[in-house]
């Protein structure tokens, strides 16, 4: 049984759970788990070229996505004292069904693109696309700012999966730069969420609608 396949299945499951789940704490933990699992991907997808670089990247990703981000997001949630459930724009059942549809579309898309021959698993590209679209869906359909940040993280996870799996010759510097950017992005977003809560006493972005034409 292919190790990469197990990781990809876990990614699919975590995405589905995020789409169908309404509990914020569970969602943050699920995204963290997804990040950790994906951190292991470079090591497992390129076992024939095992090197220090992949190990360092994996360690960095796991530390960042598995520990720092959830800690930071939990802090933001605690400061915002968010306990109320907010009905999203698209209900949870519909989101799940949309998720299945997105998965089917991702598989269909990947049939049309020529894949390189040295892929570790034929599921890499479809699952990557699935994460990307699911992340976009989460950003668009959720009202709470923290949920939108989680959607953004899922989007980045999808892009990362694609990068690690299909474009391995991008340099370590770029990958480190990407990681750094995601870190700072989450950091800045977290601070903004804190400010949003202080200003508005809620973190529902659908109520941020003063500016319009």
């Amino acid at each position, binding site marked *: *049984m292919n190790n990469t*396949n*197990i990781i990809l*299945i876990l990614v*699919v*499951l975590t995405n*589905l*759970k995020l789409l*169908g789940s309404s509990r914020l704490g569970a969602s943050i933990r699920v995204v963290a788990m997804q990040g950790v699992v994906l951190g292991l991907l470079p090591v497992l997808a390129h076992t024939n070229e095992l090197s220090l670089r992949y190990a360092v990247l994996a360690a960095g990703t796991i530390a960042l996505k598995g520990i720092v981000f959830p800690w930071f997001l939990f802090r933001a949630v605690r400061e915002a004292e968010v306990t109320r459930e907010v009905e999203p724009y698209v209900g*949870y*059942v519909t989101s*799940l*069904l949309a*998720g*299945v549809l997105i*998965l*089917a579309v991702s*598989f269909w898309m990947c049939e049309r693109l020529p894949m390189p021959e040295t892929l570790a698993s*034929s*599921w890499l590209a*479809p699952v990557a696309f699935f994460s990307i679209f699911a992340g976009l869906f989460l950003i668009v359909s959720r009202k709470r700012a923290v949920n939108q940040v989680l959607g953004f993280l899922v989007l980045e996870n999808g892009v990362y999966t694609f990068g690690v799996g299909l474009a391995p010759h991008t340099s370590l510097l770029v990958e480190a730069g990407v990681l750094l950017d995601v870190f700072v992005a989450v950091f800045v977003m977290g601070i903004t969420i804190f400010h949003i809560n202080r200003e508005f006493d809620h973190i529902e972005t659908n109520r941020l609608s003063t500016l319009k034409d």
Partner: protein
Amino acid sequence: MNPESFIPLLLALLLSPLLPGIINRTKALFAGRRGPPLLQIYFDLGKLLRKGAVYSRTTTWIFRAGPMLELAAALAAAMLVPLGNFAALIAFPADFLLFAGLLGLMRFFTVLAALDTGSSFEGMGASREVFFSALAEPALLVALATLARQAGSFSLSTMLGQVSGGHWLHLGPVLALVMIALMIVLLAENERIPVDDPNTHLELTMIHEVMVLDHGGPDFAFIVYGAALKLWLLTALVVGMVVPATGASWLDLALVMGGMFAVAVIVGVVESVMARLRLVMVPQLLVGAGALAAAAFLLGLK
């Protein structure tokens, strides 16, 4: 039609009341009690068959016919499900659709009989039951479709009979997802926690129990036996998927029987460990099972 194909049917008829007994015993052990004997359901069936029945004046012939029709549907479904290496009595391509249809027919007669009483409790239970089954059915069908694709055949007997160690090695994740989806469908269709509590008789929390509230005597015996058969058949689906085919028929059968009892114990454990879900969360669970089955199907396509 060789005599060997009667074995699955015979075993189903004889041993199906054993499964609820095992589940109840497991729950009791978990709770620290000694619990009822394993053969309790047999004694219950015997007791019920000897009793008389009382029929309300608001009911019609539908109420009286319902339980018998239910049992008939269950028996017909039992003829389609294989066990171990033995093919089912009736096997043809796409027979799993007939299987799902017969289960649906069973549910239909239960609901009709319940609505016939004209009581609002039964009506409430009927609407909930039908809603949840409508959500569970796609999960069942997609899961079976995935299996069909993997086994390369549309007949239940071949699908379940051919799943071997090799399949699990290559497509382990896919089959694992299908198994989880089928387990959730099993819990939903057989009125088990976390979807429905078989021991509750509180008005607002019953789903399946409330539909059979007014039946008594032989009718209720048919219903209990039919429910046990349904549990056996769905368990046979799950076990048939999991237990690899070793080639030796009697060894296979022994393994499968072991698997059935193991699944019953697992259901008992799940019932003891979890609380029942809020009614608004049950659709999410069922659609989640459907999503898992669909994901397995798509992943298995590659």
